[in-house]
């Protein structure tokens, strides 16, 4: 073509500009022949420029639509002719037969036949794509001008749709009317099933076919959810998978134990994940995951957990891995993990109840204590003493057992449950359940006893870290205890004994314990305990201060008695425990008559004390004190024939000291009767009996001789000074007051509970008044629930108790009922 250049003056003769009217048919013949070459992979002979130019000219001459139609027709012919028949050649008879019924061919034959088909299809699809991409490049100008201007899909897209219609939607064979697409799905599913059964399949091959399905749409709108993969394959895949896994779950439950089930289920889940990645599409992952999880876990988890080899078995045999597996499975289908949680909780309560029952059984193995005649309720015989020791041991064992249980489940929680918060809460609740169980009311006492035991003996020779671990254990248990007030009561009682009797190994550890409780339970809880320690410190200062004071008097009396004193604040210390006057029944205990020398120093101290703290009243508690007495036994003939004077230092209770001093006044050989002692000293009957028992009955400390000689003490008994007393040591401890902290007898326990209930009444009333003062008016239900929540840290009050206290407060005109309200409510009376 010779187009005129701009500068030329003489215009060339007008010809059809840019070539003559082109002959469409002959041009198309050229293009068609070239396309055939492209499809048969002979493109390298063709000139791209030439083909492009032909197509360009056709479009420029407004023949774009004709060209488009021709190309489409050409492709249709090509696909339905060449391609379709080449694919049908791949369909071996057994592949077709299998599509309808299984049998007649081996799995391997089927796999090979399937692969052959898939390969052929993949090849055809790949070729089609490559060729169409070349064609589309040749027809670029048609796409750009004709397709865009006329809003028709690009020739490439059209050709892909043609592949779907002419190949995938075509009949499988002349005889078989099912579309090829169904066969394709079926073959892929079969291959996957073979892989599930352990065969090795060509994943890439399947993935290529899957990509083809994903690239094509079922409709011509090309909407997202209408991909052939989703429409014709995915649902089938999910359905067959569901059937398969349902069956597998059945047989696995039948044939394997729970641990094995978990392992296989997890393996299956991972396999499906891998399969989506390597063989199918990742978009299917969540869907198949759901199917597998529903069939293998959700529908089976209850059965699985409750299997004989289920959670209970795993716990009992420390199968931490399996527990982790089952937890993991449960977590997949249930964020609350309720089945595993339920099983764990059940097992905790079961094991905890066993521990409780063991403790009860151990404490009941001993004969029940005989009802005591007096208020002291001290054991009267060895057997009883022993049984109480047994119970104490049971108490300590209970604590240890609970801690072992706790350790066990902590390990499970940490190693198997990934420190799951929900499970921790559930497990804590279960521990609290059995520890606070109504059938086992002694946990507070036992925990306090456990601490007591450790404070007195357990921590001896242990390192700081070990001690800290012990303290921490106690705190852990304490956390579970609901009735914190009851624990406080016991702890005070036990602490009191430890302090006054000097039983504690380390004051430091005691204080550490207190500060731990403070962190755990708050200031209120430890205030009184701390006050007890303060009293002890103040008492030491008082003792030394008084000693100095006495020395300052100048009166150097060689027989002066040394006084060590503990001044206890009555509100702080558990007076009922130490036998002092309670708040209500003052002077319940008669005042003891001290010998003059003792009386003198007692007065001296009272004077000294009242100078320091005016207005305070001191009450003496001789039942709690001890005295060191120097005793001289005269030269009398001993059983072994020796004949000399013996001096002993006797460490006795204050009462025993008072009794012994009576014999100082007595001429040798004389006696005093029980009644005389009682009259002169005013020692309470029970205390007197016990002290005389240890002075005159206990074989090693028989400083007095009783007549008649018997174990029982009777009012008419006569007592003599035992001049022939003999002992191997200079210092002799006359153990009288049974002073160890032991489990309470049932009777004591009832008393403690009664006292506790009494003090609870006050606490509840105080809480009610506090709430009402603030709210002025409140409905009954609200008041009850608020009261409970206020007291949550201390104990859980019975609703009946709250009701009763409300009644009392109304009686005492703190509150009144609001009349005419729909719900019953109360008003605060200022």
């Amino acid at each position, binding site marked *: *073509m010779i*187009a*005129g*250049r*701009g*500068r030329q*003056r003489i*215009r060339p003769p*007008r010809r059809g*500009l*840019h070539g003559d009217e082109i002959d469409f048919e002959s041009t198309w013949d050229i293009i068609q022949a070239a396309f055939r070459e492209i499809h048969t992979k002979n*493109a*390298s*002979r*063709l*000139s*791209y*420029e030439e*083909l*492009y*130019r032909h197509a*360009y000219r056709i*479009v*420029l001459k*407004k023949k774009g639509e004709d060209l488009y139609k021709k190309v489409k027709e050409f492709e249709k012919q090509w696909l339905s002719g060449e391609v379709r028949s080449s694919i049908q050649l791949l369909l071996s008879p057994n592949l077709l037969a299998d599509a309808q019924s299984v049998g007649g061919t081996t799995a391997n034959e089927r796999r090979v036949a399937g692969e052959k088909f898939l390969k052929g299809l993949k090849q055809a699809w790949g070729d089609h794509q490559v060729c169409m*991409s*070349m064609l589309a*490049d*040749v027809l*670029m*100008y048609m796409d*750009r*001008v004709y397709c865009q*201007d006329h809003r028709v899909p690009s020739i490439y897209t059209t050709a892909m749709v043609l592949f779907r219609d002419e190949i995938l939607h075509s009949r499988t064979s002349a005889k078989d009317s099912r579309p090829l697409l169904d066969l394709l799905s079926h073959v892929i599913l079969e291959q996957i099933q073979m892989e599930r059964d352990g065969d090795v399949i060509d994943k890439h091959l399947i993935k290529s076919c899957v990509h083809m399905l994903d690239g094509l749409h079922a409709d011509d709108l090309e909407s997202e959810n209408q991909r052939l993969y989703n429409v014709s394959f995915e649902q089938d895949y999910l359905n067959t998978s569901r059937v398969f896994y349902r069956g597998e779950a059945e047989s696995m439950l039948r044939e394997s134990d729970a641990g094995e089930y978990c392992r296989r289920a997890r393996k299956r889940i991972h396999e499906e994940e891998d399969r989506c990645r390597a063989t199918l599409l990742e978009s299917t992952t969540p869907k198949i995951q759901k199917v597998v999880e529903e069939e293998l876990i959700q529908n089976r988890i209850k059965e699985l957990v409750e299997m004989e080899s289920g959670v209970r078995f795993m716990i009992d045999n420390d199968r931490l891995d399996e527990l982790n597996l089952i937890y993991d499975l449960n977590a997949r289908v249930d964020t609350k993990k309720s089945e595993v949680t339920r099983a764990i909780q059940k097992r905790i309560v079961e094991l905890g109840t066993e521990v409780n029952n063991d403790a009860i059984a151990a404490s009941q193995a001993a004969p029940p204590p005989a009802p005591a005649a007096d208020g002291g309720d001290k054991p009267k015989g060895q057997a009883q003493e022993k049984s109480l020791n047994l119970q104490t041991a049971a108490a300590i064992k209970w604590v240890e057992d609970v801690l072992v249980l706790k350790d066990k489940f902590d390990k499970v929680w940490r190693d198997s449950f990934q420190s799951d918060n929900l499970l921790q809460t559930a497990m804590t609740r279960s521990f609290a359940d059995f520890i606070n169980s109504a059938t086992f009311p002694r946990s507070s006492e036992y925990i306090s006893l456990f601490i007591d035991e450790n404070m007195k003996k357990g921590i001896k020779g242990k390192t700081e870290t070990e001690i800290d671990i012990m303290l921490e254990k106690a705190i852990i248990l304490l956390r579970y205890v609901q009735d914190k007030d009851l624990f406080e009561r016991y702890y005070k009682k036990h602490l009191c004994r430890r302090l006054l009797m000097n039983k504690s190994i380390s004051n430091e550890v005691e204080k550490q314990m207190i500060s731990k409780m403070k962190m755990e339970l708050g200031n209120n809880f430890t205030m009184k305990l701390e006050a007890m320690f303060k009293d002890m410190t103040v008492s030491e200062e008082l003792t030394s201060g008084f000693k100095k004071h006495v020395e300052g008097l100048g009166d150097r009396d060689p027989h002066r008695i040394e006084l060590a004193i503990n001044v206890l604040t009555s509100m702080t210390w558990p007076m009922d425990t130490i036998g002092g006057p309670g708040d209500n029944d003052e002077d319940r205990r008669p005042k003891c008559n001290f010998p003059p020398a003792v009386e003198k120093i007692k007065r001296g101290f009272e004077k000294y004390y009242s100078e320091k703290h005016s207005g305070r009243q001191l009450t003496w508690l001789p039942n709690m004190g001890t005295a060191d007495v120097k005793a001289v036994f005269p030269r009398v003939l001993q059983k072994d024939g020796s004949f000399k004077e013996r001096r002993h230092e006797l460490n006795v209770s204050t009462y025993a000291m008072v009794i012994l001093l009576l014999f100082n006044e007595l001429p040798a050989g004389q006696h005093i009767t029980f009644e005389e002692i009682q009259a002169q000293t005013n020692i309470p009957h029970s205390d007197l009996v016990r002290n005389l028992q240890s002075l005159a009955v206990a074989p090693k400390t028989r400083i007095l001789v009783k007549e008649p000689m018997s174990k029982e003490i009777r009012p008419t008994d006569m007592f003599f000074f035992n001049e022939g007393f003999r002992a191997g040591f200079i210092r002799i401890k006359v153990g009288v007051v049974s002073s160890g902290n032991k489990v309470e007898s049932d009777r004591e326990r009832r008393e403690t509970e009664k006292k506790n209930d009494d003090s609870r009444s006050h606490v509840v009333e105080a809480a009610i008044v506090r709430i009402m003062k603030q709210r002025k008016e409140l409905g009954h239900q609200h008041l009850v629930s608020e009261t409970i929540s206020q007291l949550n840290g201390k104990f859980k009050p019975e609703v009946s108790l709250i009701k009763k206290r409300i009644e009392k407060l109304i009686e005492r005109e703190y509150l009144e009922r609001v009349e005419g309200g729909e719900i019953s409510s109360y008003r605060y009376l200022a």
Partner: protein
Amino acid sequence: MDAPTMELMSALASMFETGKYSDLTIVCGTKRYPVHRALLASRSTFFDGACRNPFRESETGVIDLTEDDPEAVEHMVHYFYHLDYLNKTLSRRSSQRSSRQTPRSPRFASRRAPKKFNLALVEDPLLATASAVDTSMPLTPPTEQENQFDNLNASTKLPDSPMADQLDENPFDCMTTEPEADTEKPHLITHAKVYAIAEKYGISGLKTLARKKFAHQIEAHLGSEELPEACQEAYESTVDTDRGLRDVIIQTFRSHPDLSLRKDMEMTVKETPGLAFELFRMASGLPVTS
């Protein structure tokens, strides 16, 4: 223009000069242009297709464009490396270059490249490339059209003065070329042909550039003898829906009604049904495109 852009531009120019690393040859009649696939394929859908597919061209590395107008091909190739065509140095240079078989010595090339590199000229192509992004240009409402052309004219005037500066600033250039003020000649047919080839091979930047040059020149050379043939070329070398040059031409007729009275124009209108039809629509007060 900043230093990095200069660097790139001079590198491209040097690649064109030396044919270094060339991996494709465009043949047009007797001329051979050693070019670079990466540079062409990334800007033209046609060349992309030619390089991508296993046709003869990609096997042999030769694309024969003899069927195309040689001048348009030359401008197109020049554009790929300079972002412009028909600047004053073009014809002599390229003819020298194309006749020369051996590449220039590197020393020579490196010295020449920066000199040859034309600051003012580059400004224009960059604008052209930028405006190529905005492909929507159906200018049907006549009033707006007018405004738009005013703007267009104003902006196309810009390159003129720097080009004059260029002469003063780079006296060395004078040695290699006869100063030829390209804007003095209309080149309307050339621009129309470049426009067509840019459309044919899918080079949108060049298409925009050609249209701009055409619009500018038609305004400056209303009396040119080329005008009728250029109009015919514009109407016959692209499809009807391509409004680029058509809008410019119709607009020119609208603002210069006396054009229709020219004898040579009369003949062309008779021979060019597309143009005749649109002029008729315009004269009847109808929208030019239906």
